[in-house]
Structure formats: C-alpha cells, structure tokens
C-alpha cells in the first residue's frame, strides 16, 4: 500500500489484526505513516478506525501483526517499555479526557511534574506556552467542567503537547462541536503542523476537515484499508466503498441482527 519512501516511517503497521473476544475488527492491515506528515484516518462508524488508533497508542493489544514505532515493535513489548514510547506521543481524546479534579493548568503540568525533574517555575512557564499555543492562556485556573466543549478539546491538545511529542494523535477532533468551533480545531491542527514538524495522526469521519488538514488520507472500511494516498488520489479513486463514502450514498437499512454484526466486522460480502 505504502508508496516508496527513503526515510524511515514514524509508524509502520504490518499485517495488523485486532479482535475483541471472538470478533475480529481489523483484518490484517499494513501501512506506513511518514515522519512529519499529517495522516487522516477516515471511515464510517464502527469501521475499526478507533480500534486502529487505540492499537497505535498501545491501549489495545493486537492479536497478530506488527506495529513499529521508533524501531520497536510495540505489539510484543510490555507496558513498561511501551511507556517509554508513549512519552514521545501525545493523544487528544474525543471528549478531551481532562482530569476533572485538576485545573486546566494542572492538567497540562501533570506530565511535566511526573516525568521530568524540571523546576516548578519552568513548568509554570511551559504550561503558559502550551496553553497560549491553543489559545487558552487566560484559562489556566479554570476547572475542565467550566470550559466549553471546544475549549476542553483545545486544553486536551495543550496537555498532549506538554512533553513535546514526536507523534500527535487526535481522536475525532471535531465530534460533537458546531461547524465554527470544529473549523477552529482544524485550524489549530494546521497551525501545529506549521509550528512543529511533528507527525500528526487524525481519526475522523468528517470529510471537510480531512480535505483541509490531510497530507495523506487512509480510508478504513470494515476492518480493511480501501484507499491510501494524497487528496487527489483519493478524489480520483474508483473503489466503490470510497465513492460511496465520498459521495455520501446511504447504506441500505440493516434490519437483521446478524447482518448488522457482519456489517461491523466485515464478514459479509456486499452485494455490489
């Protein structure tokens, strides 16, 4: 799938399979994420894109296959070694997942306090810088519950940036936000891309935001990759599922329980 590339990829996924219990969600997928690119993982609900993201950050163990990050196959290592790799990753969760008992500033400071031996005054400055980058410098002392949905996600981005990660993951950055706030988040991702040369991986089902921020787009459908490439390549794709997704053609209603389960896991062949 991956195009020829002379530099080592930031993440390399080889024949990745992930199951929940007996149900296989990802059916052996392989792709590379290049250093410094913004890759958008696109797909419908239940297609396996969130599972893919959870596997990349080590929250979900693969049943088989390899996930290479920084020269280490994270599919085979323990929690401890994974933690070392996680220090170089930042993740912004769908609902922010800020710690409700701490202020926004303390949330951003937490990884610095726990993982570094920086002076408290230095941490203070870094928190202010990170919050400034997401446009929340005035909200350091607010509790997460006092912020709007969009601000909470921005604060979560600031926390993800705290340790100066090499790879930044976003889970549905615009989910549950109105179009204006969502556009603001897209702009934030673009700004980060410009400011740092970090690798950004975004999982979403929002087409407009994918077109805007992506260097390359990966389309996942029923646990398989159906397309991977830059915007032009995706736009020109003739794959029926890609076309259906891009042209927003509705699925026929699923009324049978078994069909629904098979639709999720991709065991059912689509009548084309």
């Amino acid at each position: 799938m991956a195009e020829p590339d002379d530099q080592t990829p930031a993440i390399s996924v080889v024949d990745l399979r992930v199951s929940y219990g007996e149900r296989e969600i990802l059916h052996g997928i392989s792709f590379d994420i290049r250093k410094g690119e913004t890759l958008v993982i696109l797909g419908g609900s239940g297609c396996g894109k969130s599972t893919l993201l959870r596997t990349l950050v080590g929250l979900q163990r693969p049943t088989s296959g390899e996930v290479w990050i920084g020269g280490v196959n994270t599919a085979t290592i323990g929690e401890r070694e994974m933690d070392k790799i996680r220090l170089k990753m930042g993740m912004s969760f769908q609902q922010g997942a800020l710690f409700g008992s701490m202020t926004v500033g303390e949330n951003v400071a937490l990884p610095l306090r726990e993982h570094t031996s920086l002076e408290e005054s230095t941490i203070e400055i870094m928190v202010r810088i990170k919050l400034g980058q997401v446009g929340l410098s005035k909200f350091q002392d607010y509790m997460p519950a006092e912020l709007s949905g969009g601000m909470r996600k921005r604060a979560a981005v600031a926390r993800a940036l705290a340790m100066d990660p090499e790879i930044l993951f976003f889970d549905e950055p615009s989910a549950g936000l109105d179009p204006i706030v969502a556009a603001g988040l897209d702009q934030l991702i673009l700004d980060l891309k410009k400011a740092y040369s970090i690798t950004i991986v975004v999982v979403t089902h929002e087409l407009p935001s994918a077109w805007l921020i992506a260097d390359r787009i990966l389309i996942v459908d029923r646990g398989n990759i159906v397309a991977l490439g830059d915007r032009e390549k995706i736009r020109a794709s003739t794959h029926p599922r890609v076309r259906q997704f891009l042209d927003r053609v509705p699925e026929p209603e699923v009324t049978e329980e078994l069909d629904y389960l098979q639709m999720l896991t991709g065991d059912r062949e689509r009548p084309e």
Partner: protein
Amino acid sequence: MKTAAAESLPSRVGSKTLESLAYLGSLAQLAGQSAYVTFVGPFKGRRLRPQRAIQQAMAVGVEAIPILSLISFLFGLIMALQLGHELKRFGMMQMIAEAVVVAVTRELGPLITAIVVIGRSGSAFAAEIGTKKVTEEVDALRTMAFDPVAFLVAPKFLAMLVMVPALAIWADLLGVFGGYVFGTLAAGFTLQTYFQATRDAIVLHDLYTGLIKAVLFGIVITAVGCHEGFGTGAGAEAVGRSTTSAVVTSIFLVVTVDLIFTTLFYITG
C-alpha cells in the same frame, strides 16, 4: 454461548467457583501491584506522591468521623440495652461494662467502621474510577505513560491501611461511651467505676484482634471498590452498576473475612 439449561449443575458450580477464585485473584493482584508501587517503587527511583494519599486519607478518615461517631455511639448504647435486659435477669448488671467493651473492641467497632467506610468510600472509589473509565481519563493516564494503578489505586490503599484501623479505634471508644451512658443511667455505675470495670475487662489481645480485622477490611474494601471501578463498561448506568456491586461485594467479603478471622482467633485463643 451455551444456555444455562444445557449446562449440568456440577459444571455450573465448577465454573462459578473458578469465576470467584479468579475474582479473588484479581483483587489480590490489584493489592499486590499497589503494595509494590508504594513500598518497593520508591527504592527503584519511582517517585511516590504522598499528597494524593493524604487527600484520600482526609476523605476516607477525617470526614467519616462525625457519622462514624454517631453510629458507633448508638450501637454501643443498643448493645448495652440488649445485654442489660439479659444480665438483669441474672442479677449481673455489673457485667455490663465488660460485656460491652469486649463486644465492641473485638467485633462491633471494626465491623461498624467497615460498613461506614464501604458506604462512604468503597462506593466512592468505584464511582470515581468508573467515571474516569467512561470519560477515557484512565486511557488518558495510560497514553501519558502513567500506571493507573499507581496513580489511582495505590494512594487509596495507603490511606485506607492507616485510616480504617484508626477509625476502628475511634469507633471502639464511642461504642464504649454508649455503654457508659447506659451503665450510669440504668446500672448504677459512676464514671470512675465504669472506667475501672472497662479497664479491668479489656486485654491487649481484644484490641489487636479488632485492629487486624480493621486492616484486612480496609484492604478488601479498597480492592473491591477499585476493581469494580476498572470493570465499568460504557455509559453512565455502568458507573451506577459498578458502585452497587462494589458495596454489595464489599459487605459480603468483609463479613466473610470477619468470620474466617474470628474463627482463627477463637481456635488460637
């Protein structure tokens, strides 16, 4: 998925037993991991954060004092009333101080403490961790390279190990005070004679058997509360279910542990 009817009774008993053993195993694992990060971790260069344990100790211990005082005082009084009724028939009212203090220190103090702590803190542990699970805060901890057990569970264990025995001692005192109120009002004791009778009746053994129980109750309540919290599924109702199950399971296990240790103390004298 086999239906229940298709399974024979012995195989159902077998699988339930295995499930229960696995549950106890995971509780022990949680306690073991917490003990490791608390007592071994600091020697391996991992920082211990006492502030979190102190916060927990405030919530678990200090804030429980008013309600625990009231309940254990009333229980002491009730015990004295019940015993008084029987002792009067035998004309042994002077035994009331002894009967109350032994019952309270060996059994009632730790047990009432456990029940109060389950209601206040065991449920809160499950709800807190369950909510963090639902809002992806536990996942966030893991992606930030924090061990959720070290971060969320270990401070609770440390706080409970100190506070539950301390609360049990306090409950003992208030229980005895409840007995004293009955003793002076209905059994002709004065403060001095009641105190003297209590002191003569109690031996160190009574105190520490109660305290050993209290420590064990603390471990059981924390392990169950946190385990149920981590087992929370998706959605707000799941948090409610975990909380209920934490309370019910804790009460059951506390009573079981109580029985086992009371039997042991009985046999060993």
